[in-house]
């Protein structure tokens, strides 16, 4: 699946993750899925990591509920979440995989370990061997880009 995110939303995630460093930062993504199989992120939510550490994140459930309500109000679909890895690569850790329990969700991970940020998207679902991870194609698009 191709996932698109606006440059401005990428910038918001990146700036929030920088501000929260050294702790992990997190939030939700919302938008819609097109008939052509493109997942369009239309809004990102910057939420509180109630673990407040550089090793874990847990999204505040009250903020999560408020974000879901906002999505419903604005006709957006919950598409998954994002979180930062301040000191590690942009790939799901064992704990990320263990706690990824919604196979419909996309999981975005922003790595800050190098000077240039790296954002990747993953699909994670349960399988006989535990969890199967598949990297999804992610496109960061400018404001003038046409939607697929």
């Amino acid at each position, binding site marked *: 699946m191709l996932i698109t995110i606006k440059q401005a939303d990428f910038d918001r995630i990146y700036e929030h993750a920088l501000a929260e460093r050294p702790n992990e930062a997190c939030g939700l993504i919302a938008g819609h899925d097109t008939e052509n199989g493109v997942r369009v992120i239309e809004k990102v939510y910057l939420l509180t990591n109630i673990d407040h550490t550089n*090793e874990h*994140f847990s999204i505040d459930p009250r903020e999560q509920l408020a974000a879901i309500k906002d999505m419903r109000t604005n006709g957006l679909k919950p598409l998954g979440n994002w979180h930062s890895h301040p000191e590690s690569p942009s790939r799901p850790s064992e*704990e990320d995989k263990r*706690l*990824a*329990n919604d196979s419909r969700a996309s999981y975005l991970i922003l790595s800050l370990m190098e000077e240039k940020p790296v954002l990747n998207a993953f699909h994670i679902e349960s399988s006989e061997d535990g969890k199967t991870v598949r990297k999804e194609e992610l496109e960061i698009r400018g404001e003038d880009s046409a939607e697929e």
Partner: protein
Amino acid sequence: MKITVAGEQKEVADGLSIAELIVLENVETPEYVTVSVNEEFVNSDSFESLILKEGDVVEFLYFMGGGR
């Protein structure tokens, strides 16, 4: 009766409990799911006993967490 589940209006049987709705909706890994009814969180101990009413708005919130 009509209730709203995850943003979609649905017709369900009267007397449906949260626990029955979780099964009906094929919720994945329910042990990691928090349920809200009309924007109030429901304690998992009440899933069997809480009976839904006409017009209730239900959300299933997956625990969202991880680590490096």
